[in-house]
């Protein structure tokens, strides 16, 4: 983040203060955005959840005194807004409230967030890079078979739900694992439980666990981004300025490299920012299918356990993630497009 800022500042010294002020202003706006989003989900959750349902249906029945005490502890006697504010007031200090079963949410939140990031970031970064590459490659070969096939493949990939894709990957890979006799690429979790590997071996173990879920996360995103990137690149290829660049003596390849690429990347920043939330939702499925206990998995089980605090916390983190990505996309835009600096 800071690096990016410095980069911008160096290239436009005069605009540095204005840029910083502008970015700060956006940060404030986005914090508000996150809070509004979280308030919305919290309210929905708090109004529709019945956190004690699970305890009430145990066999033999839970003593009433215990139920009452739990209700008081969860603040179920308070109206939603004060409850939300009570929760929110703890957040800056890292207190995210307690779960329905009495855990401090803060105990788990960072582990969950870490797991999600470890799962989702490599796949997404890879997907953006490959998506862009495939899109550009396709645009440069527009109309040829390779392009047609890759675009058709992208359409088909996008027509298959993420959770089916994960299952299909497992089905396809299972025979390979079986043939190999061991789990070359494991299906569940982020490392072999109970293994006492260390150093490189441990890293290798994690890497093997990462491969299939990363493919599951990346494939639809690659399909998604490549389609847009291809369109953006095609537009640029037909643009007047590219023709002008060639008119001044650049070969087509060089003109595309020096002028086309950058222009074609500009619309992608907004696309990444907008679609990130969608892909994040896809990541929830992937977490479930590949047994990674990340934010999405947490949120889903929180919904099953009717736990509004956890829902609010995981939403908050996801919202922050979306907003941070949006902010990074803005930054990328500023780097790519100097017009946005003034």
């Amino acid at each position, binding site marked *: 983040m800071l690096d990016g800022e410095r980069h911008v500042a160096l290239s436009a010294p005069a605009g540095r203060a204005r840029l910083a002020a502008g970015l700060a202003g956006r940060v404030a706006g986005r914090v508000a955005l996150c809070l509004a989003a979280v308030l919305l989900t919290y309210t929905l959750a708090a109004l529709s959840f019945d956190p004690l349902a699970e305890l009430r249906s145990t066999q033999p029945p839970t003593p009433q005194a215990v139920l009452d005490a739990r209700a008081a502890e969860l603040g179920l006697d308070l109206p939603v807004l004060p409850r939300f504010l009570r929760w929110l007031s703890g957040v800056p200090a890292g207190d995210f409230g307690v779960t329905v079963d009495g855990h401090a949410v803060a105990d788990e939140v960072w582990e969950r967030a870490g797991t999600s990031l470890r799962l989702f970031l490599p796949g997404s970064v890879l997907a953006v890079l490959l998506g862009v590459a495939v899109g550009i490659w396709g645009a440069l070969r527009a109309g040829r078979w390779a392009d047609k096939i890759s675009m058709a493949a992208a359409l088909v990939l996008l*027509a298959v*739900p993420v959770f089916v894709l994960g299952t299909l990957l497992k089905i396809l890979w299972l025979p390979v694992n079986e043939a190999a006799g061991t789990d070359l690429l494991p299906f569940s979790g982020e490392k072999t439980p109970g293994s006492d590997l260390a150093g490189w071996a441990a890293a290798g173990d994690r890497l093997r666990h990462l491969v299939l879920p990363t493919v599951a996360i990346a494939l639809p995103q690659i399909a998604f981004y490549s389609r847009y990137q291809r369109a953006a690149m095609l537009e640029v290829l037909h643009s007047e300025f590219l023709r002008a660049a060639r008119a001044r003596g650049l070969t087509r390849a060089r003109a595309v490299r020096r002028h086309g690429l950058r222009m074609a990347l500009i619309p992608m920043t907004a696309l990444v920012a907008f679609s990130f939330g969608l892909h994040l939702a896809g990541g929830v499925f992937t977490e479930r299918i590949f047994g990674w206990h990340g934010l999405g998995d947490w949120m889903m089980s929180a919904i099953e356990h009717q736990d509004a605090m956890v829902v609010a916390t995981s939403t908050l983190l996801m919202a922050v993630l979306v*907003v941070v990505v949006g902010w990074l996309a803005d930054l990328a835009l500023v780097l790519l497009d100097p017009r946005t600096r003034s």
Partner: protein
Amino acid sequence: MTAAGTPRRRPGRRPGVVLGSCLLVALALAAFAGPLFLPYTHTQQDLATVLSAPSPAHPLGTARLGEDVLALCLRGLQKSLVIGLLAAVLTTVVSAVVGTVAGYLGGMVDRVLMAVVDVLLVLPPILVVAVVSPALRDQSWLVLVLLIAGFQWMLTARVVRARARSLRSSGYVVAAENMGASSARVVTRHLLPQMAPLLVVDCTLNVASAVLAEAGLSYFGFGVQAPDVSLGTLVSAGTGSALTFPWVFLAPVGFLAATVLAAAVLGEGLRDDEGAR
């Protein structure tokens, strides 16, 4: 600017449009007329032939309780199509109204509406739907349609708003304002017709995403509730059988992918058509 006198190309020439619409029509026919020609209903159990592989009697095999998989898929397709279409139409209507009103009126209205859009865009929509759906579980599936539409309209609304904003200063809108036309007239006579191709395209693409959204919700058990079935519930119920009784899984996956693909191909084709004009 189109050359003067060039007749507007009618959509339908692009292979995507032809392919997509034919496939969609075929699927719809199969979904609504198909069951009439089947000897089984989707609920009919035959405990003597559970999980039997495809055979002439059951072209797609039978499911866990001996139900005919084809009958199940057609019934699921029916529900998925209906949900997809309704949700898409609703999405489009909401986004058209919000987008044009915000874009045309601007000012405070615009700011408030766009703030709402921004807030909703921060959240992965399917998760928000998941939060509320347990409470609405035994409501009718129409609630599901509302939910899907309720969290899917934002992106289109933004696009529509951007269009409306650029149209707001366009010659014919200004001309209409100058002749004293009311805002309602400007919106209905000038903005919305202008937006219609965009909205049609979007509606088609929304069918695809609504069908996928329903499937996703069903995967977590938040979608269509038993005893009713949708492609989503069939796929998610069949996931466990993918290796053991593959037809239970692959058949609904095939129908689902075909539906989404058809809608997407049609939508993209229409979009290209629109872009070409």
